[in-house]
């Protein structure tokens, strides 16, 4: 079935064999991203959100085992061979990694790195690739005269702009952004996020925005998916999920986040720790930390069910809107 979506992820699971046992980093994650849409993926450290990003662009370590499907239009991403993968990456889906200072090579100029990336993923001459660089930098608001700069000569915000420029070099349909502004100050963060919004409107790409910062993502994404212990526990429109969260974990995330609006009142910390991802015991993975759990939740795994139009929750507390799918 041809899809209007840029990306369809269905039942994606990623496992890592370790000496202690198999780590189920991602378990049965499904979502779709429409053309020009921003989907936000929010979770705490260790929730598997970066693993999802890395699986989509196939940069996981060789030991990782996948199942499920990742489709980008007609392409089955998990089945691509090395050559196809090379042209898939950057031409169709590119990645903006966390921490711009680490994503750039310190001993190469910005221009050289952009040329490298362009030529690695597309058949163009060095000259043609070089001709593209000034325009790319201009796109993200950096003076093209600075293309011969080394990363250390640029500020953190400028480096992140360069990383974004390089991610857009081959006009991908989808840009996966894994914590794109985490290391930056709020003022620079807002400027970068505004820039991404502007470019998205101008160029029409879609974004998978991954962050631990719920407020940041909720402000930018039309769809919001909350991840916990390798699973999506709640997914829906940003407005719906933040205004009427259903999953107790989403609620906890929203109520434990300090805000600059409203009254200052004492917030409560979400106690406990995320579960060990090696365990394969059934039951709700949020059970030990959940204030509303009933005993039987410990043994039965909740499935994502629609609780409102376009709003799905994996929690036993909510009956399905329609017969369970």
């Amino acid at each position, binding site marked *: 079935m041809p899809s209007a979506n840029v990306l369809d992820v269905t039942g994606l699971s990623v496992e890592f064999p370790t000496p202690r046992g198999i780590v189920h980093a991602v378990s049965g994650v499904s979502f779709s991203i429409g053309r020009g849409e921003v989907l936000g993926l929010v979770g705490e450290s260790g929730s598997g959100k970066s693993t999802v990003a890395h699986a989509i662009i196939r940069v996981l370590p060789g030991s990782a085992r996948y199942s499920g499907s990742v489709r980008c239009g007609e392409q089955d991403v998990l089945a691509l061979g090395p050559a196809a993968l090379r042209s898939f990456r950057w031409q169709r889906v590119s990645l903006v990694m966390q921490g711009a200072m680490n994503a750039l090579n310190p001993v190469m100029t910005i221009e050289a790195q952009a040329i490298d990336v362009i030529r690695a993923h597309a058949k163009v001459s060095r000259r043609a690739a070089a001709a593209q660089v000034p325009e790319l930098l201009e796109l993200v608001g950096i*003076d093209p005269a600075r293309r011969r700069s080394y990363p250390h000569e640029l500020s953190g*915000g400028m480096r992140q702009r360069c990383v974004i420029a390089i991610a857009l070099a081959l006009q991908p349909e989808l840009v996966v952004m894994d914590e794109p502004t985490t290391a930056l100050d709020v003022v620079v963060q807002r400027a970068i996020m505004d*820039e991404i919004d502007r470019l998205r409107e101008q160029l029409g790409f879609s974004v998978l925005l991954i962050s631990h910062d719920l407020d940041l993502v909720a402000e930018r994404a039309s769809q919001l998916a909350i991840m916990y212990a390798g699973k999506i526990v709640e997914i829906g429109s940003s407005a719906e999920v933040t205004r009427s969260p259903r999953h107790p974990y989403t609620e906890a*995330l929203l109520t434990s986040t300090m805000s*600059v609006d409203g009254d*200052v009142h*004492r917030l409560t910390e979400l106690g406990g720790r995320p579960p060990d991802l090696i365990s394969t015991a059934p039951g709700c993975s949020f059970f030990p930390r959940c204030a509303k759990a009933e005993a039987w939740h410990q043994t039965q795994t909740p499935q994502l069910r629609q609780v409102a139009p376009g709003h799905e929750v994996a929690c036993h507390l909510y009956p399905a809107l329609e017969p369970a799918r």
Partner: protein
Amino acid sequence: MTGAAQQAPLLELRDLNKTFVTGWLRNRKTVRAVAGVDLTLRGGQAIALVGESGSGKSTVARLIARLVRPTSGQILLNGSDVLAAEPRHASRGYRHDVQMIFQDPFSSLNPVHTIGYHLTRSVQIHGTAGGRPVADTVAGLLEDVGLGSVAAITDRYPHELSGGQRQRVAIARTLAARPSVLVADEPTSMLDTSVRVGILNLLDDLRRERDFGLLLITHDLASARYATSHTLVMYAGQILESGPSAAIIASPRHPYTQLLVRSIPRRGTVHPVPAPGERRQAAAPEAGPGCPFAARCPSRMPVCDTVMPGPTRTEPGHWVRCHLFGPGGGPQPHQPAAQNDSRREEAL
């Protein structure tokens, strides 16, 4: 807010300056990391020092902790001039009184030592067991930071704990010294959001119980508002605005504070707010005698480039250094001398 205003100043910084010199000969540059900072912390009070990276806020923390020596200015603890009495190194007494918590609880704890060892050492060094067995004191400290129920915690190593638990250990270690001033430099910025609140709640509870003064150094205005009664906003080494934390965020006066507040992500808002000012990075603003924020300021006037205004009171307990509110209390005693201050080159 809690009657702290009546208490005598515990820690005072007066016209504190720190200039770093980098480079050689012709490339020699001076960076004024801290330029004329005044700050007063009273017993039992919690105040926040807010700024972006490179604003000099961590240098203030390091100056208070006596990890670096100020170029000029005074540090007063309980009214006595610390630098005059102990010019080179802080005395043991000062180090009892003033304790620090750092951003990264993983690097501030030694990975080869157990939690029990870390705390036992602190109790012994500071001699705070008071005749009781040290192990009892350690157990009491762990109880106080909410780790009393963690099984065999004293035998564990830092890597066996979560980030939040490690930060609690770091807090317990400072409590072993029975400090009267606790300086927390970004204590929650490496932690998950759901854990941050727990650490700030703990610091708040401990402060009320033990009546120490807390200086929270952070880039996060929401944390400042949540955990402190008073906030100072720092930019390029100088305090630009100071006032009640709630007022600073609800009605910021300085254009820089306004920019900071406007930049905070807020759920429920629909975007986009246009980015202020020029998109493209201008050349690094030359550090002149004027306001350090002038080059980025939407309300810049000619006078901003030449004169740094003094503090002007806008409301009780709230002052701002900005020409929009008047020239302030006369000319500033400190003349900025920095050149090519790379810290100000942060791009928009």
